[in-house]
């Protein structure tokens, strides 16, 4: 694979439809005879349902059906499952409350659906929803993460509202390390709860055909095959061969569209009942209430160091909020995607982490861009920075002193992972240079003269991506293997249709995958189209999350391309009347070694379909190949982010004056797209650090339920970025790629907070560092001096 396309900034093939308004998102689709669904949602966070009054709504104009949670119970529909089984440290299985698609007897979070109204028009459905009355007996809500275990049980069979008490690492060795330490740095942190806010609200259209008994579901999914599997195997809506799930253009996901939700499941069930298509599109208010939220950890951590500042041991205790139910991958996020990352880039010999996962009367919490890895990085990088401050060691130097050296790979961490490759000093050095770290002191002086506070903060992150080696994931409780499929169809005239189980909802797969296949096969990129997001078209696939698409889905395509070349070689040998060993393939041409004879891949493709004289015992017609790629290890992208801020002490407003991100994503196919992924991730991380916060009041009411109260980063809240790359190619996949989708959101929050605290000369503050909080911190410090 030597081609100028690898590493080229190819403009995106998908852009033309998006910039001309010709994208096709779920809500853009309308079917003949379509009805509209609106949901009745609980206004209470925790209540018993005493009765439904639906006859007024049933008789309202245009109403086709009103279905409640009671009918879900009567029909015996299965609950929405969690796909990852965790075990507590005592060996017991995690507790999983039944998650009905609509509640019939009891509601457990504000916004939970209890009934659906289906009508001929959207307005009629919306009007009739107001006619549905539900009697509730309100119960005390459990809201706070850290005290949830001490409050009244939400579920009678789940004591102390606890899902599991999980542990990883060596408790004894860690205690030993702490006992021998010359210095221990301690920190207590809240990782603030976030709402994903993909710009396209979730939507679905379910279309049941009473003649064929087939159900087609258009939905905003990052992994349509997984949705189909859950509908069939767990909820039992329709058999898998009669169910086609299509995720057309999807307007962002960030994790929130991985999961199977109540609404698309309900309308699929309802479409079968009414025999007509049903459309549902979330209002933003519904997205706020019901999209799976992210983060929400309360953590205490301690880092033991010797006299020279070498890390001896790390002890972490975290309480993670699961919300009211376990969402599709919720259990894995604060455990195998969190505890395993606590070694970071460091040689810390002993690590022990305990995680208590608790249920509360809030929306379910699941993977959100980074999923567990931002939480781990945040704990570690805040702790390291605080240690540097306490020991008066330069924070870059303290990190460097503890890095795993580039000659120490493969490196087995004390928390289960084996890193295959990396060069952490290279990223650190490049970031220090790009950020002019050495010149910070003079910039700080200049700010001081202007009456401003300037600070600089680092974060050296690592993530485990390329989810996931199926054997390992399975041994840790994953319900499915996490391989990926890819298929390459070389058409008779030489154009190529690429089918992938990965799903693009902004990542640019239609371009990156086309580049990869073009580079492998020597076929012009304009002749290659990538198809994704339709279970009726491609083989089973696992979808897109955890920065896995190129590393796993791309590797499957790379393997499929190898098979195309192998098959093409046989065809070429037949046509050129030689042995396959005498054929070599290069840049789109099958050549007879040491001769001028050869056939282009286009000629071979044509021959593959139209030839009449294949020796059919040895050679089948056609040039379509597929591969299922199962990675042997995770990939380990890593890098250094450096944030510099200036704070106005009169207002508490933090301005990011410079943000430098240096990342090692292994081999890059399209650096333009990779940088775009970094930019987006950085702003989500900066949003978490400075602006965003999901707040429930003590009754479990979401008070940050619109863009008026949930502060999204806007163009004038953030700077432009300095993005740099280093490269140690992944050692175990054929592309050499590690994944780039989440790094920005993982590395940036601690860098921003470390910079803010550095400017303030303080060591403790929780995100988001709003201007009010920063101003208050300045006032408090002044008052105590």
């Amino acid at each position, binding site marked *: 694979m030597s081609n100028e396309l690898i590493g080229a900034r190819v403009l995106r093939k998908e852009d033309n439809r998006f910039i001309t308004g010709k994208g096709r998102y779920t809500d853009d689709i309308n079917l003949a005879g379509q009805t509209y669904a609106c949901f009745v949602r609980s206004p209470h966070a925790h209540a018993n349902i005493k009765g439904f009054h639906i006859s007024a709504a049933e008789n309202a104009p245009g109403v086709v059906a009103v279905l409640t949670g009671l009918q879900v119970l009567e029909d015996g529909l299965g609950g929405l499952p969690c796909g990852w089984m965790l075990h507590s440290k005592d060996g017991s299985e995690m507790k999983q409350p039944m998650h009905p698609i609509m509640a019939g007897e009891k509601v457990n979070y504000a916004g939970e659906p209890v009934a659906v109204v289906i009508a001929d028009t959207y307005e009629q459905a919306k009007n009739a*929803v107001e006619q549905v009355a539900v009697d509730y007996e309100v119960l005390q809500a459990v809201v706070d993460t850290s005290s949830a275990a001490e409050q009244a049980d939400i579920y009678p069979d789940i004591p102390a509202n606890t899902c599991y008490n999980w542990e990883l690492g060596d408790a004894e060795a860690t205690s030993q390390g702490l006992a021998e330490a010359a210095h221990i740095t301690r920190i207590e942190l809240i990782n603030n709860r976030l709402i994903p806010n993909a710009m396209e609200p979730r939507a679905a259209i379910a279309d049941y055909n009473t003649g064929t008994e087939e159900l087609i579901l258009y939905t905003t999914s990052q992994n349509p095959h997984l949705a189909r599997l859950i509908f069939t195997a767990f909820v039992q809506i329709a058999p898998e061969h009669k169910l086609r799930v299509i995720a057309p253009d999807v307007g962002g996901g960030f994790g929130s569209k991985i999961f199977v939700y109540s609404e698309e499941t309900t309308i699929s069930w309802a479409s079968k009942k009414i025999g007509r298509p049903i459309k549902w599109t979330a209002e933003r*208010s519904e997205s706020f209430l019901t999209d799976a939220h992210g983060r929400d950890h309360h953590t205490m951590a301690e880092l033991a160091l010797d006299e020279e500042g070498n890390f001896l041991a790390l002890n972490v205790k975290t309480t993670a909020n699961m919300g009211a139910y376990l969402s599709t991958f919720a259990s894995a996020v604060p455990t195998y995607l969190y505890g395993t990352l606590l070694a970071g880039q460091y040689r810390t010999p002993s690590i022990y982490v305990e995680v208590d996962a608790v249920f509360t009367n809030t929306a379910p919490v699941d993977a959100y861009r980074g999923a567990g890895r931002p939480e781990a990085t945040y704990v570690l990088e805040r702790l390291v920075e605080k240690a540097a401050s306490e020991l008066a060691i330069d924070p870059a130097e303290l990190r460097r002193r503890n890095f795993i050296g580039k000659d120490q790979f493969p490196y087995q961490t004390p928390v289960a992972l084996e890193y295959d490759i990396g060069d952490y000093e290279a990223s650190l050095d490049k970031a220090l240079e790009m950020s002019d770290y050495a010149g910070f002191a003079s910039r700080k002086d200049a700010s001081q003269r202007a009456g401003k506070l300037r600070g600089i903060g680092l974060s050296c992150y690592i993530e485990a991506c390329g989810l996931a080696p199926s054997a390992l994931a399975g041994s840790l409780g994953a319900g499915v293997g996490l391989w990926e499929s890819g298929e390459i169809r070389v058409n008779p005239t030489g154009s190529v249709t690429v089918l992938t189980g990965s799903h693009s909802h902004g990542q640019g797969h239609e371009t990156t995958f086309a580049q990869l296949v073009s580079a492998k096969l020597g076929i012009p990129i304009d002749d290659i189209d990538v198809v994704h997001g339709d279970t009726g078209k491609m083989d089973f696939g696992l979808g897109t999350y955890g920065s896995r698409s190129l590393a796993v889905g791309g590797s499957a395509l790379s393997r499929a391309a190898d098979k195309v070349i192998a098959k093409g070689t046989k065809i070429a040998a037949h046509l050129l009347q030689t042995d396959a060993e005498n054929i070599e393939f290069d840049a789109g041409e099958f050549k007879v070694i040491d001769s001028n004879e050869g056939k282009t891949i286009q000629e071979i493709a044509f021959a593959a379909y139209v030839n009449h004289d294949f020796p059919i015992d040895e050679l089948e017609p056609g040039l379509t190949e597929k591969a299922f790629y199962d990675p042997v290890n995770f990939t380990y992208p890593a890098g250094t982010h450096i944030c510099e801020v200036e704070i106005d002490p009169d207002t508490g407003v933090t301005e990011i004056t410079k943000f430098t991100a240096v990342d090692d994503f292994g081999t890059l196919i399209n650096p333009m797209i990779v940088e775009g992924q970094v930019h987006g991730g950085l702003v989500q991380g900066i949003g978490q650090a400075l602006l965003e916060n999901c707040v429930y009041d003590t*009754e479990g*009411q*979401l008070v940050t339920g619109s863009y*008026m109260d949930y502060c999204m980063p806007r163009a004038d809240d953030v700077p432009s970025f300095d993005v740099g790359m280093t490269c140690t190619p992944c050692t175990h996949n054929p592309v050499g790629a590690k994944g780039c989708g989440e790094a920005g959101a993982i590395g940036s929050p601690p860098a921003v907070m470390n910079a803010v605290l550095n400017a303030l000369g303080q060591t403790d503050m929780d995100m988001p560092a709003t201007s009010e909080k920063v101003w208050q911190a300045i006032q408090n410090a002044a008052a105590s001096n």
Partner: protein
Amino acid sequence: MELTQRLEIPVSNQVVWDALNDPLILMQCLPGCQRFEATAENCFEMTVQAKVGPVKAVFKGEVMLTEMDPPRAYRISGQGQGGVAGFAKGGAQVSLVPAGTVAQPATLMTYVVIATVGGKLAQVGGRLINGAARKIAKQFFTEFVRIVCKQEAMDVVIETIQGEG
């Protein structure tokens, strides 16, 4: 949200107390009240149209008078369901202290208003609830004073003791 306010009304304690127990007066004082009917002793059903921020809804619910200590104090509390808008709960602990003379009677009224909302009201109107509750309380007690004093255009001065005035 919690708000404590105080005002002086130039009529006797008993007159104020009687008015506080008169459903017709209560109905006239409650902004947007369309119905206020007694269902049992000290229990009423009401229908109120209210607006919090961008959410406007008709609330149907109950009002109860409890902790009766005539003519000194009671608690008026209510809750209403606003359909898809959510629900609102609120009330006031009202206490009366004689403040005037026999010739010029007056009553010092102190009340603590508590209000909470749920559902869509909390979601998009939550941060406005303080302002809305304050405004409703002000309208209620201003109208109340004007009715008991039988002066439609009377200036009513309300002093805030605790909470955002």
